[in-house]
């Protein structure tokens, strides 16, 4: 679940861990910059938190290595400019290297 993955990343940031966050596959939709809170659209009650707002807090939590997959962007017909937080788009072989250089990988 995106929300809980994001919360884990924020926690890692709050504890000063050196980390990168990688948005792969469907997770890329979490960064779509046109997301709106339900209350902006219709009623005046939030049905859920605005996921993008929380995502935008990543840099304040000290997380500035943000990556996504160029291959997945192509699959989804997405442009990098449509995403918030200006992630770095990597090709699969670069992502493979990023993963193998990590001490630990947590997936959500």
């Amino acid at each position, binding site marked *: *679940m995106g929300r*809980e993955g994001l*919360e*884990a990343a924020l*926690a*890692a940031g*709050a*504890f000063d*861990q050196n980390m990168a966050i990688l948005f792969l596959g469907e997770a890329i939709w979490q960064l779509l910059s046109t997301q709106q809170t339900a209350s902006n659209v219709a009623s005046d009650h939030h049905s859920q938190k605005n996921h993008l707002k929380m995502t935008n807090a990543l840099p304040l939590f000290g997380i500035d290595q943000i990556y996504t997959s160029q291959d997945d962007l192509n699959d989804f017909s997405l442009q990098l400019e449509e995403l918030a937080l200006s992630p770095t788009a990597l090709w699969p072989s670069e992502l493979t290297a990023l993963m193998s250089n990590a001490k*630990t*990988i*947590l*997936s*959500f």
Partner: protein
Amino acid sequence: MLFTLVIHSGPYSQTSSTSLNALNFAKALLKEGHTIHRLFFYGDGVFNLNAQMVTPQGEIDLPKAWHTLIEDHSIDSVVCIAAGARRGVLNDSEAKRHQKDSGNLLGSSDLSGLGQLIEAAATSERVITFG
């Protein structure tokens, strides 16, 4: 080696549940002489320690099996407090704090924060996620 297992999968997830995989992996690593630094139950994984779960007869009772493993080996087991609260897995004090009738957290696992996951990831030699 020092392992931490992160369990995201509930005992009855919509798609393939890896709870049993995680349980069997935990048992095997202990048998092989390795150590579990911590079990961290996150997301739907919190349902593995729901004391109210009723397993159909003839099937493996996963909450009971986790409970037995945790108690027999005095394993440090943490259920994420926020993931648990959202899904109605609470201990008695959290139930009281949120004005709910009663707790349903099985056994001696701790309800605690994500700091426990981050600490475990930093400390353990191996972190294996079961999603």
